């Protein structure tokens, strides 16, 4: 290969050619993703906007624009309001339990040497299990007359509780099952955060007199886990808000609507009653909450102190 000395013009044009190739390649690589982005997210979103402003029913022929009537109806609908409330109550129970339970377990497991692996596996098992399958098992576990939980209560002298058929306990029971499922996942995240805290900080604290469990937790562990905790809280909130599976399989929204949650109502309206326009509006309300949570997450993560 001869060493050809490029003239300045040739250099410029070869550079420009390279840039052009890079541009084309970049677009080419991104094209499938871009196409899917449009087809599976953007276009549907646009359609959803349109639908939410109509009274379209799937399978029907009429389509009238009704403006914001769907939204007004949704916000005034007692079923939807109850549904929102249920969802928020569910979040309010599941998030503290799932986050602080996981934090406690992570702190306890963190310093074990021989048993740590074993506990990690046991606590993570529910995360991998198919919730629908386990839902059946939970139904049986909590059965008023056949289940061992009530068996234990009876043995202790209490009256049996019909966990899933009592309106006052059904939602909380679902929340406990939700905690059961997510605890291991959050625990792993907290373990990662705990491992990131340098060991010599604890040693320096030991010499400084900060050696009791409470002191160490308040002075070092909790502050340095801040970003991790924030992340876990927000992720758990989003996961909790999306609850659907256990309701669809175990309670179908009952008893007397005490476990009807937002996503379940959206499913019913959209895919059982086919009130498509109305369901679209509900979906936007659902999305609004998710976006608020996600925004809070980004905001909190950005604000985290850069140590």
């Amino acid at each position: 290969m001869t060493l050809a000395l490029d003239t300045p013009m040739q250099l410029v044009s070869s550079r420009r050619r390279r840039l052009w190739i890079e541009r084309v390649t970049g677009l080419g690589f991104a094209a499938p993703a871009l196409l899917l982005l449009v087809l599976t997210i953007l276009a549907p979103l646009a359609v959803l906007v349109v639908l939410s402003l109509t009274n379209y029913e799937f399978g029907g022929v009429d389509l009238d624009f009704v403006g914001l009537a769907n939204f007004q109806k949704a916000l005034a609908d007692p079923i939807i309001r109850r549904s929102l409330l249920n969802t928020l109550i569910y979040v309010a129970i599941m998030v503290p339990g799932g986050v602080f339970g996981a934090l406690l377990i992570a702190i306890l497991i963190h310093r074990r040497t021989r048993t740590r692996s074993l506990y990690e596996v046991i606590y993570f098992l529910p995360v991998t299990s198919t919730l629908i399958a386990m839902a059946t098992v939970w139904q049986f576990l909590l059965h008023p007359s056949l289940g061992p939980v009530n068996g234990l209560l009876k043995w202790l002298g209490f009256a049996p509780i019909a966990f899933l058929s009592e309106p006052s306990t059904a939602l909380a029971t679902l929340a406990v099952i939700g905690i059961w499922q997510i605890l291991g996942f959050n625990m792993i995240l907290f373990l990662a955060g705990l491992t990131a805290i340098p060991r010599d900080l604890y040693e320096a604290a030991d010499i400084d007199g900060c050696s009791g469990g409470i002191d160490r937790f308040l002075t070092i562990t909790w502050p340095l886990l801040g970003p991790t905790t924030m992340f876990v809280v927000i992720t758990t909130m989003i996961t909790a808000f999306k609850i659907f599976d256990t309701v669809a399989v175990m309670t179908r929204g009952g008893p007397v609507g005490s476990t009807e949650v937002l996503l379940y109502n959206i499913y019913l309206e959209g895919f059982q009653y086919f009130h498509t326009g109305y369901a679209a509006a509900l979906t936007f309300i659902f999305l609004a909450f998710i976006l608020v949570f996600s925004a809070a997450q980004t905001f909190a993560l950005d604000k985290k102190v850069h140590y």
Partner: protein
Amino acid sequence: MSASPPLVATVSSAHSAARRFLSLVLIHGVLIAGALFMLAPFIWMLVTSIKPPAEIFSAEIALWPKQFYGVENYRFAMEKAPLLRFALNGVILCAGILVVQLLVAIPCAYALAKLDFPGRNLLFVLVLLGLCIPVQVPAMPLYIGLAQLGLLNTYFAMMVPFFLSVFAIFLFRQFFRSFPDDIINAARLDGMSEFEIVWRIVTPSAWPAIAAFAVFSIVAHWNDLYWPLIVISDAKLAPPPLGMMFFADAETGSNYGALTAAATILTAPLVLAFLIARRRFIDGITMTGVK
């Protein structure tokens, strides 16, 4: 400093040894209690699946079956519902989704990380926005579209919304960004096409991230109920969660022996995979958190 005679020294060291033992008992007590809570459903599921109906419906609650009825329960479950078919559907679904996800996300992530092209920033903003939008949001329009195209009740329909994983794009982009430019430039000088560079040089280096994502994707889609519920009504195509729901419906919830047998069969693949590839699972979760 006050004088401390040896006697006090031994007493206080015995004290602290006792205190250490007590705290250890307390710690493991809490951990074991929690572990029992975690394991209770699994244990009950396995135990019930081998009990005869008489024992299941008896008033007294016992852990271990007096009569081994496992074969009957499992056979009944397998006959009544195509459980293995459900599991197979799960495998097809997860594999299909994962393959396309990787094929789409890796080049896109590489382009976002290393190449300059018009619209790059816009694309990245869209990716970030996509992270905030769960699949339940575009579900309805997608359903309508698929219905119009007559594509309901197909494997394709079950996979479509998931082909694009913005999470994968985001994750891999982070990884690729830290890949040294020098190696890429050297490869270019050696005459490698960009396509080859992506698949033969950069992708192998991101193997931990890819494996972690694969775990994440498989677990999520094996256990997904919402979307399959919407697009599938034919039990032959049902993935495990949907299959379980069909089965439980058909059984009108009274044959707990068969139900728990079915639950065991459907839960087993993932649980076994987890027990075998523990490290991968846990690293995968950690990576999503470290993001």
